[in-house]
């Protein structure tokens, strides 16, 4: 059995049993999983984790599951020392957490692995989600692994590459004829109507917990210490808050020293409600209409924005927004220096990191981790104008003539 004991309201603290539920009945605020940390502390140790599987499930005791887990091989992705990129940016101890290397090429496998495990525990035979890409593929893949029905709702204008990347797992792929807001409203209503496990609605508190494994891995891979600074992409803000929670839990369990990590979140300027609120000194995040190529982080009304703001402030971190052009430049820089092809959200992280270093907020000697949460191969269309080739005749002479190479 796991150590989760209740769902607790993040605003008013009311507790609820561990069931498919995402909102507090009283104040309609989000719920999160609460644990019996005292018992958990007796069950975990650095040595025990080290002997666990080479996946996110080496941290099973820190996750809210009670049964056999649904795992397609997620996690324990590389933490790469990025000397080339560090040199370009002026950082001596820069690391990249490369979460492109998950089974469906994004960090979403972490959250979905937990959510689908819980869906099975709750007795759902059908899971569903609304997504613009990464989540859709991950839900479809995990459902396929355990023979569950999967309904995946996407906007009808989704890129063909992403549709194929989801359809291959054979879910019921529903393209909704309408705007992004229409998909949102439809799924809100369906969640109230059908007894399904909606990954990002009624399973959300469990789903969220999967993100903590990114923090656990980074700490373990750094020799059981927390970084000085992290830069994380923010959509709903959930990942950002859970990386913080993950580090905090490790300290609470005595596995690392008290955490003094400066948490920086990054957004695309075309959809930066959390950064706007941070810059304005506001405690409330006001919704915006997204307009950016970084679609995987284009959430106009972030569910965890308020909490993400708090983490950025409490940790002595910050928030930074970059333009689409800067994001593409960030993608190219990461690929050219470290050989990692990230999606636009990764470009946002690298571009934000560059700004944070240039402005002196992140210092040269600080141990810094940039989180790259999704691979670029799914969204190649945003890079169509970087392809420059020179066509030659199939003769050595032609090659030497065009490229000026001599024997």
């Amino acid at each position, binding site marked *: 059995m796991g150590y989760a004991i209740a769902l607790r309201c993040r*605003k008013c603290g009311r507790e609820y049993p561990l069931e498919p539920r*995402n*909102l507090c009945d*009283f*104040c*309609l*605020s*989000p719920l999160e999983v609460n644990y019996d940390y005292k018992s958990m502390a007796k069950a975990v140790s650095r040595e025990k984790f080290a002997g666990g599987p080479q996946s996110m499930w080496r941290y099973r005791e820190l996750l809210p599951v009670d049964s056999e887990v649904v795992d397609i091989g997620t996690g324990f992705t590389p933490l790469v020392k990025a000397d080339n990129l560090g040199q370009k940016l002026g950082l001596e101890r820069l690391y990249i957490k490369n979460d492109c290397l998950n089974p469906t090429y994004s960090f*979403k496998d972490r959250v979905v692995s937990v959510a689908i495990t819980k869906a099975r525990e709750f007795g759902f035979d059908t899971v569903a*989600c*609304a*997504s*613009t*890409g*990464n*989540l859709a593929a991950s839900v479809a893949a995990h459902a396929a692994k355990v023979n569950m029905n999967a309904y995946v*709702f996407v*906007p009808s204008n989704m890129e063909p590459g992403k549709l194929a990347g989801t359809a291959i797992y054979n879910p019921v792929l529903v393209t909704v004829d309408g705007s*992004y807001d229409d*998909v*949102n*409203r439809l*799924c*809100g209503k369906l*969640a*109230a109507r059908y007894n399904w496990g909606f990954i*990002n*609605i009624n399973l*959300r508190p469990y789903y969220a917990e999967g993100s903590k494994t990114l923090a656990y891995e980074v700490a373990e891979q750094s020799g059981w210490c927390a970084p000085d600074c992290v830069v994380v992409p923010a*959509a*709903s803000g959930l990942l950002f808050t859970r990386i913080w929670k993950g580090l905090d839990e490790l300290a609470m369990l005595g596995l690392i020293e008290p955490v003094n990590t400066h948490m920086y979140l990054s957004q695309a300027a075309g959809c930066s409600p959390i950064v706007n609120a941070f810059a304005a000194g506001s405690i*409330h995040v*006001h*919704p915006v209409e997204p307009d950016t190529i970084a*679609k*995987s*982080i*284009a*959430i*106009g*009304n*972030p*569910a*965890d*924005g308020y909490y993400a703001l708090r983490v950025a402030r409490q940790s002595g971190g910050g928030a930074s927004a970059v333009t689409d052009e800067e994001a593409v430049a960030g993608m190219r820089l990461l690929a050219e220096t470290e050989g990692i092809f990230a999606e636009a*959200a990764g470009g946002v992280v690298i571009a934000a990191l560059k700004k944070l270093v240039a402005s002196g907020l992140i210092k040269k000697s600080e141990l810094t981790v940039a989180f790259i949460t*999704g691979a670029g191969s799914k969204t190649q269309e945003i890079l169509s104008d970087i392809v420059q080739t020179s066509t030659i005749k199939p003769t050595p002479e032609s090659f030497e003539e065009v490229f000026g190479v001599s024997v």
Partner: protein
Amino acid sequence: MVKRQVMFTFPQELIKEPIIYNLSQQFTVVTNIRRADISEDKGWVVLELEGEEKDIEQGIAWVISKGVRVDPVIGDIVEG
């Protein structure tokens, strides 16, 4: 009867209008405010609506037509 939890975000020019009062009067929808923050230039209200499905739908459509942004309370549901 159904219940729907929503978040209204008001632009500055609508802060003084009694939108929630009018919603309940015109559409037979019971409005129950749970959280809110209103300043001089912006405001949001998290509330539960209770009524017949069609009344809630029509009521929300009217609120949107007035220029208020209406979202599910957990924020955007569609994830990347």
